[in-house]
């Protein structure tokens, strides 16, 4: 994968597979401390410490269609190559939180990529989940919670063109307003 937001999407897909009802995504760029981090927190089925350790190994996966899972091991390798880390906090029945940290200016750090596209994919593609998204750049923040939108719509699908337009503009503008001018 060539963008961190594709990894972010992949991690969020794991939360959906874990049966989560509420998923919180945070992306933070802190320029003074040269840190870029993102996390996905869910209230899905969770896992024990042994499984949390094991899924960083490419030959372990909960899936049944194939015996290897590469998403988390690849992200872990990418973070560690940039003086960063990947941590998984979880317990059975308690959901999971996956956090990846990168040295922002590291020459091997993948570009963040299109954050708005990743958020749109999740919010529109899995409307039964309550999504909350926080993007923070230094002291500025953009927050998106899809619950008030869904309440207003009273059952009108998110994939209606006018709704798509509204959500896309809202997210794109919110992100663009605080996104740093330079990637590294």
């Amino acid at each position, binding site marked *: 994968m060539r963008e961190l937001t594709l990894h972010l999407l992949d991690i969020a*897909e794991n939360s959906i597979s874990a049966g989560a009802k509420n998923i919180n995504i945070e992306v933070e760029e802190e320029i003074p401390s040269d840190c870029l981090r993102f996390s996905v927190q869910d209230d899905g089925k969770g896992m024990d410490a042994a499984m949390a350790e094991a899924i960083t190994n490419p030959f372990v996966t909960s899936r049944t269609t194939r015996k290897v899972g590469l998403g988390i091991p690849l992200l872990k390798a990418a973070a560690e190559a940039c003086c960063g880390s990947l941590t998984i906090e979880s317990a059975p029945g308690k959901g999971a939180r996956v956090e990846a940290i990168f040295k922002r200016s590291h020459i091997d750090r993948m570009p963040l990529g299109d954050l708005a596209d990743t958020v749109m994919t999740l919010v529109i593609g899995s409307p039964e989940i309550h999504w909350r998204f926080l993007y923070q750049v230094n002291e500025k923040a953009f927050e998106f919670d899809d619950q008030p939108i869904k309440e207003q719509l009273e059952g009108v699908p998110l994939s209606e063109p*006018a709704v798509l337009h509204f959500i896309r503009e809202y997210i794109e503008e919110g992100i663009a307003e605080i996104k740093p001018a330079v990637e590294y």
Partner: protein
Amino acid sequence: MNKVKSLEDLKRIREEALQKRDAKTISGQKQVIVGMGTVGIAAGARETLKAILNFIESENLNEIVVRQTGNIGWDSYEPIVQVVIGEAEKVTYGKVTPEVAMKIMKEHVVAGNIVKEYAIEA
């Protein structure tokens, strides 16, 4: 963005959408599903889904449900898109780039003709 104004916009959007629904005879639900497993994402599924959403927005197409799903099980054909129209059998498409997605939207989802050259299971 002014949040209060935004929510008022949504109320208007909802009322317009409901009016359109009442005025239309329902011709069977249309569902477009994009496989968003690790392999799909790496192969470009996010861009494929984006192209589908952009098409719906630019062509102003109502009543199409777009969903993402985990791995569908055809890794070498990713990105995978499935189309279900009303009671008809689900059609699975493989190697769906954004350009192919537009073709599927135009020819299958809108016009009702399966795009045979990209169908891997019909």
